[in-house]
C-alpha cells in the first residue's frame, strides 16, 4: 500500500470542509445510535446496523461522485485505479475515525466533569441529559466502531467500481 497517498488523502479530505464536517457529525450521531442500539433488542440492533450500512454506502458513493473531476484529472496525470482507491479510503478513514474520537472524547469529558464535581448523573439536570444523549460505555463504543468499519467495506467497493469507470477523458470533456 502506498502510505504516501493514504496520508496525503487525509489532508486532501479536510480541504473539502463542508462535506467532511457534515459527515463527521453524521457519523458521530451514527456511532451513538449504533452503540445505544447494541444495548437494546435484536430488532433495534438490526435497524441501526442497517442505518449504518446505508449511511456508509451513501457516503462512499458521494465521495466518488464529488471527486469525479479530481479522479479524472489524477488519472490523466498517471494515477492508477488503486491509487484512486487509496484516496477514497483516506477520506472515509478520516471521517469515521474523527467522528469516533469526537464521541470518545465527549464521553470522557462528560464522565470526567461528573466525577470532578461529584455530580450524580442518575439525577436530573443538563449533565444527565448529555450523558443519556452522548455517553457510550466502552464495550458498545468499540463494538460500534468495529461494525461501522465493517459496514463501510461494501460502500468502498462500490465507490471503487464507480471510480474505475471514470475515464481520464471525463475531466477534459466536462470542462
Amino acid at each position: 500500500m502506498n502510505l504516501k497517498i493514504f496520508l496525503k488523502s487525509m489532508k486532501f479530505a479536510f480541504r473539502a470542509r463542508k462535506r467532511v464536517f457534515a459527515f463527521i457529525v453524521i457519523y458521530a450521531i451514527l456511532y451513538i445510535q449504533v452503540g445505544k442500539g447494541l444495548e437494546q433488542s435484536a430488532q433495534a440492533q438490526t435497524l441501526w446496523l442497517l442505518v449504518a450500512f446505508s449511511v456508509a454506502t451513501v457516503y462512499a458513493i458521494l465521495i466518488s461522485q464529488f471527486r469525479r473531476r479530481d479522479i479524472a484529472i489524477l488519472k490523466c496525470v498517471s494515477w492508477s485505479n488503486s491509487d484512486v482507491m487509496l484516496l477514497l479510503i483516506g477520506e472515509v478513514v478520516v471521517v469515521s475515525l474523527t467522528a469516533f474520537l469526537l464521541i470518545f472524547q465527549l464521553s470522557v469529558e462528560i464522565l470526567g466533569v461528573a466525577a470532578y464535581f461529584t455530580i450524580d448523573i442518575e439525577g436530573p439536570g443538563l449533565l444527565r441529559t448529555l450523558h443519556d444523549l452522548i455517553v457510550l460505555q466502552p464495550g458498545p463504543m468499540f463494538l460500534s466502531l468495529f461494525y461501522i468499519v465493517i459496514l463501510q467495506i461494501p460502500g468502498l467497493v462500490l465507490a471503487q467500481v464507480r471510480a474505475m469507470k471514470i475515464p481520464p477523458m471525463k475531466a477534459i470533456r466536462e470542462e
Partner: protein
Amino acid sequence: MPNPIIQVQGVNKEYGRGKKTVAALKDINIEINPGEFVAVVGPSGCGKSTLLHVMAGLEAPTNGRILLDGVDVTLISERDMPKVRAQKIGFVFQSFLLIEDLTAYENIEAVLWPSLEYRKEKQEAMALEVLREVDMLERKDHFPRQMSGGEQQRVAIARALVNNPPILFCDEPTGNLDSKTGEGVLKIIAGLNRDRKMTVVLVTHNEELVKYAKRVLRMKDGAIVSDK
C-alpha cells in the same frame, strides 16, 4: 536519423454506431522525431484534439497503432497505462485541469505521490524545481482559484514537466488566455523544446502560434492535408 519518438500508423477514430457513425480521424500516419516541435492546426471540429488524445493514450483509436518511444500504447491495458503516462507523457490542457482543493505546489507534487521511486525530500525538490522553471515559486501555496488563467496554465505546465517526460502534448494551451498571456505561455513551451529537448505536440486553431513550431500539420475533416 533518430528513431521516431511518436509513430501514428493507419489510425482511424470513429464515434457512434451504425448510421450515426462519425469519423473523427481518417487513416492518420505521422512520425515525429525526438526534439521536434510540431503544431497541429485546423478549424474547429477537424479532429486535431482527438488526434492528440489518441496519441497520448487518453482515448483508444478505432483501429491503427500508436507507438510512443517504441511502446505500442494501443496494446497496453488500462491497468498498465498509468506507468506509460508517468514515464513518457506530459499533458497541458486548455482548461488547465488543476485540482481546486490542492495548492499549486500540491497539484504538481500529486503527480509524484503514486511513485515509490523518490523519497519525500527528492519529490519536494522536483516539484519546487519545476515551479521555479515556470516562475511560479512565489505562488506555490496559492490555490487555483487565487491565481489568474496564465498562472494556472504555468502551474499546469510545471505539473506536466515534473516527471521529466520526453513528450509534451499541449491541447489548445492558450485557448482560455488573452493573447499576451498566451504568448508568454507559448514562450515557456518553446523554451522547454529548446532547452530540455522535449518533443512538443501542440494543437491550436490560432495561426499566430504556429511560428513557434518547426513543423506544421494541417488537418481538415479528420485527415492530415499538409505536413510542412
